[in-house]
C-alpha cells in the first residue's frame, strides 16, 4: 500500500511540475489530468472509492474537457515568455519559500512523526457521504447549490448578448 501511495504521489508531483514547465497549453492540460487521476489513486488508497471515482468524473472527465475544448477552439500555440515583472523577480522566490515553510510547519504540527502514513479506513461509501451531506452539512450544501445556480445564470447572461 505504501509503495502504491509513493507512486501516486510521485506521479502527481511530477505531473504538477510538468503543468508549469510545459510551453504548449495542451501538454499542460494533459499533465493536469494526470495530476487529478493520481490524486484519485490516493483517494482510492485511503479507502474512499466514491471520492476517487467522483474526482475522475467531475474534474478529469468534465472540467478538464472544457479546458481542452477551449485550448483546441482557440488553437493556442506555444506560450510566449515576457521579461518578468520586477516585483516577481525580487519577491517571487522569498514568498514561495515563506509559504512552503508555513505549510510544512502546519503539517508537521498537525501530524506527529509517529502518525501512520495511511489512517484507518473510514466509512466513505456513497450512503455515508449522502447522510453527512443531507444531515450534518445540509446548509452549506444548499448554499453551494444556490451559488452554483447564480454562477450558471451569470454565464447565460454573459453568453447571450441580446434578448
Amino acid at each position: 500500500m505504501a509503495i502504491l501511495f509513493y507512486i501516486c504521489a510521485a506521479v502527481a508531483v511530477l505531473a504538477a511540475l510538468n503543468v508549469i514547465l510545459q510551453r504548449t497549453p495542451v501538454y499542460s492540460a494533459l499533465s493536469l489530468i494526470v495530476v487529478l487521476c493520481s490524486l484519485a489513486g490516493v483517494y482510492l488508497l485511503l479507502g474512499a472509492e466514491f471520492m476517487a471515482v467522483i474526482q475522475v468524473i467531475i474534474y478529469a472527465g468534465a472540467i478538464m474537457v472544457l479546458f481542452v475544448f477551449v485550448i483546441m477552439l482557440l488553437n493556442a500555440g506555444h506560450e510566449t515568455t515576457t521579461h518578468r515583472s520586477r516585483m516577481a523577480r525580487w519577491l517571487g522566490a522569498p514568498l514561495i519559500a515563506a509559504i512552503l515553510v508555513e505549510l510544512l510547519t502546519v503539517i508537521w504540527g498537525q501530524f506527529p512523526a509517529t502518525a501512520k502514513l495511511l489512517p484507518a479506513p473510514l466509512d466513505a461509501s456513497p450512503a455515508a457521504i449522502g447522510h453527512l451531506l443531507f444531515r450534518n452539512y445540509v446548509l452549506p450544501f444548499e448554499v453551494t447549490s444556490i451559488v452554483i445556480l447564480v454562477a450558471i445564470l451569470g454565464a447565460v447572461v454573459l453568453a447571450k448578448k441580446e434578448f
Partner: protein
Amino acid sequence: MATYSDMGFLLLVACVKIAVVLLVLLTTVAYLTWLERKVVAHIQARWGPYLVGPHGLLQPVADGVKFILKEDILPLEADRVVYWLAPFLGFVLAFLCISVIPFGRGFTFHGHPIELQIADLNIGLLFIFAVTSLGVYSIALAGWSSNSKYSLFGGLRSSAQMISYELSLGLAVVGVVMLAGTLSLRGIVDAQSGFWHIAGVNTWLPHWNIFVQPVAFFVYFTAAVAETNRVPFDLPEGETELVAGFHTEYSSMKFAMFFMSEYANMVTVSCLATLLFFGGWHGPVFGPALLRILLPVFWFCLKVFGFLFFYIWMRGTLPRFRYDQLMSLGWKFLLPLGLLNILVTSLAIAWHEAG
C-alpha cells in the same frame, strides 16, 4: 485461511477470466463489423461481404491483416506525442469498461466461490461512467493533434456532444440506482430477480427495471447512442461534411484502434442496458448444474446481442441529426426528462415506503 495455494488459485482464476473475457470481446468486436455490414446490406437489398469465406465470415480476419499491413502515415504537421497517444487511450479505456461487467451467476468450484465477473466493485456503475468520461479525450486529442481542419471540427463536435449527453446518461441511471439501493452492477442485477407482484398477485412479468423505468431506459439509450457517436448522432464523423471527422488523418492500425474502441463502446453500452434495465443474466434456468451456470450467460449474451442488432438496425434506418437539433434534443428534452424521472421515481419510492 488464505494459503499460498489459495492465492495461486485465485490468481489463476483471475487470469483465466481476463483472458476469456478479452478474447470474447475482441471476437465480438471483430464480428460486429461483419454483422453490421451484413445487416445494413440486407436492409438495403444487397448481399454485403460474400467473397472471403462462406457468407463473408472470414472478412474480419482479412480486414485485420489489411490494417496491419497498410502503411502508417504520420501527417507532417501533426503533434507526434498526442497523435500517438489518442488511439491508445481510446482503446485502453474502451476495453477497461468490460472488467466490471458481470455476465453470469456465480458458482462454487471445489469450495471456491467464482463470480462470472473480473472485478466486483461496489461502485461499478460509477467506475464505468468515470472511464467513459475520460474516453472523450481520445477523440478530442485525435482531432486536435492531426492538425487538419476536418479532424479538429470532428473533435470539437464530438467533445461538445459527449459532455452534453453524459449528463442525461448519468441522470437516467439514477432511477435504477434508487430502486436497487446500490451502485454495484451485481447488486443491481440481483435486485431484478423474480417476478413483479401487484397487490400480492404474481403477474409472471419478470422483475426487470424496464417495466418501471421505461422513461429512464429511453433517456439512457438515446444518450448512450450519442455517447458512442453512432447514427443518428454520428455528426463527429459525418462523412458528407467532415470527410471522416476526428480520425480523418489516421491510417493503418491506429485507425483500426479507433474503430475497435467504437465497437467496444457499443458492446459496453449494450451490456449496461442489459444489466440496468433488462435483468442482466436473469431468464428461465433449468436442467443439470452445468446448464444452470451456462444458461444465465446465454441469456445475458442474447440480450446484449439484441441491443447490438438494434444499433445496426438504427444505422440502416435513421438519417443523421442536424447539429442544432442534436444540442436542443440533449439539453432541452433529454435532460429535463431525466430530472423528471428522478423526481417521479423518488416520490414513488417515498410513497411506497410510507404506505
